[in-house]
């Protein structure tokens, strides 16, 4: 820090706080609405603080969303774990155990993370039908693992590229095989990257709507589809929708609050060089 940058400029807090309000308002409205009693709920008084803490809305939303929350968990946990294992192995080979043409293949892998999935959706549905995974959670797991290959490989490859070549060379001279090199040298260094990729894939799969709405049947809907369905319904009141939205956001918000540093690294990996 140079001197002129710490000059007293308290007025700068005014725009900072105003902008903070912009980002917080939607969370504020979700929370105060969620904690109101049914009797207090009224669109015309939606900004008023709740009189006391009630759980009516959360209870109503949770009872409807609980099976779908469970579907999301069943989907997201295997998808994130399988994705990160695959990404780690791919990243290792493409960074530190290259075969001829490895650098040519890599950009073709990367392109896969930018495609609009509308361009593969029809074949994907046909394919899932033909292997009997249409409608269920495992079809979605497979989809997230496969379309996650580019980003997870990229993240691990960039990380392994920072591991000194000499370390790998010396292991080879000592006669270590490929898998031994991976297990003894790279894997023990990989924990931070595993965290980055796990939470990235967790968040991506938890928040996904397109694959879920096309590939899963109503009883297997994950939380996003169930919440959207709730919001589109004329019967379910807006206050219950708000509580439902908050419930749906909790898992990824908690990840952001406690593992934000890793979340950001994943985010920046998506911008390639950033």
């Amino acid at each position, binding site marked *: 820090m140079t001197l002129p940058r710490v000059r007293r400029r308290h007025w700068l807090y005014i725009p900072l706080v105003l902008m903070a309000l912009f980002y917080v308002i939607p969370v504020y409205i979700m929370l105060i609405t969620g904690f109101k009693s049914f009797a207090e709920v009224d669109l015309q008084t939606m900004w008023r603080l709740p009189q006391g803490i009630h759980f009516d809305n959360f209870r109503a939303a949770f009872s409807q969303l609980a099976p779908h929350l469970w579907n999301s968990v069943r989907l997201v946990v295997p998808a994130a774990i399988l994705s990160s294992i695959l990404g780690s192995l791919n990243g290792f080979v493409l960074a530190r155990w290259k075969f001829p043409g490895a650098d040519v293949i890599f950009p073709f892998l990367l392109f896969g993370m930018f495609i609009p999935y509308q361009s593969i959706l029809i074949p994907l549905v046909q394919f899932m039908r033909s292997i009997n995974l249409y409608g269920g959670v495992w079809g979605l797991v497979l989809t997230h693992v496969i379309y996650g290959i580019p980003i997870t490989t990229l993240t691990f490859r960039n990380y392994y590229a920072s591991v000194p070549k000499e370390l790998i060379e010396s292991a080879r001279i000592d006669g270590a095989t490929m898998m031994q090199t991976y297990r003894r040298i790279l894997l023990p260094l990989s924990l931070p990257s595993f965290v980055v990729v796990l939470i990235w894939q967790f968040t991506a799969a938890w928040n996904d709507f397109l694959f879920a709405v096309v590939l899963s049947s109503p009883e297997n809907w994950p939380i996003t589809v169930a919440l959207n369905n709730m919001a589109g319904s004329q019967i379910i009141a807006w206050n219950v929708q708000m509580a439902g939205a908050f419930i749906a*956001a909790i898992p990824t918000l908690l990840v952001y609050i406690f593992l934000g540093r890793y979340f950001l690294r994943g985010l920046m990996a998506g911008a390639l060089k950033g």
Partner: protein
Amino acid sequence: MRYKTEQLQGFALVAPSILAVLIFVYGFIGWSMRVSLSQWKGLLPDYTWVGLQNYLNLFKDPRFHIDIRNTVIFTLLFVGGSLVLGLLLAILLDQGLRGEGFFRSLYMFPLAISFIVTGVVWRWLMNPAQGARLSGLNLIFDSLGLDFLISKWHTTPQWGIAFIAIPAIWQMSGYTMALYLGGLRAIPDSLREAARVDGASELQIYRRIIFPLLSPITLSAMIILGHISLKVFDLIIAVAGKQLPLDVPAIYMWTTTFDGNFYGRGAAIGILLLLSVAVLVVPYLRYNIKQEAEL
């Protein structure tokens, strides 16, 4: 000899992933292209060749014209808004104020939640009801005496799509802020110091030194946000459902294919989306790969 086997082992280890991407990305794109050139309507596949008919029909289709117009408006506002807001926030946060980390985390938390959650909440914040049934943000504007801001939001005739950019900016501006902040932090203080010694004002320092240095970041951010914008889907569905005035190609593709069973047309929309994204992304990937090779 040993080296050869090792290379082969390496290839064998990534082969399943390469094969999966080959099939699920490139193979499926080819398959979609084939569907887009067919007359497939209805539940059963029908690959009868119709050439470019589905594409030609789309270019004559008034609904697709609405989609293109909506995409252009949304993209300009969403990308432009996120860039400007992100840059302003990054500059503010770069002033070395106390509590910077707190504000930074606050501006970025929407990145962790889904477009569906965002859409459900903003649907009520942007409630278009007027008069005695005023609610949401309109109610706040009313009580602050800012009546001129009271809006019909996404139900505004002709320009509804413009308002969808607000929640989109809310969600993604933290991302551009993070990119710009990283860029600002990479500019050495000595550069600003030297300019100050030479008598440059703060404004001049930004205009002549800092903004030009940030332009590669602006380009990256435009490409990343641009391709997100072309694919926009869940946010609109969650705010407003499927409504013709707010239609975009991704929604048209979904409804025409899976509600209407017009598979040929749906595939054609998918391929057009892919082409528009590729125009943005392919040069960007090539540039990044080239830069990496030079390192």
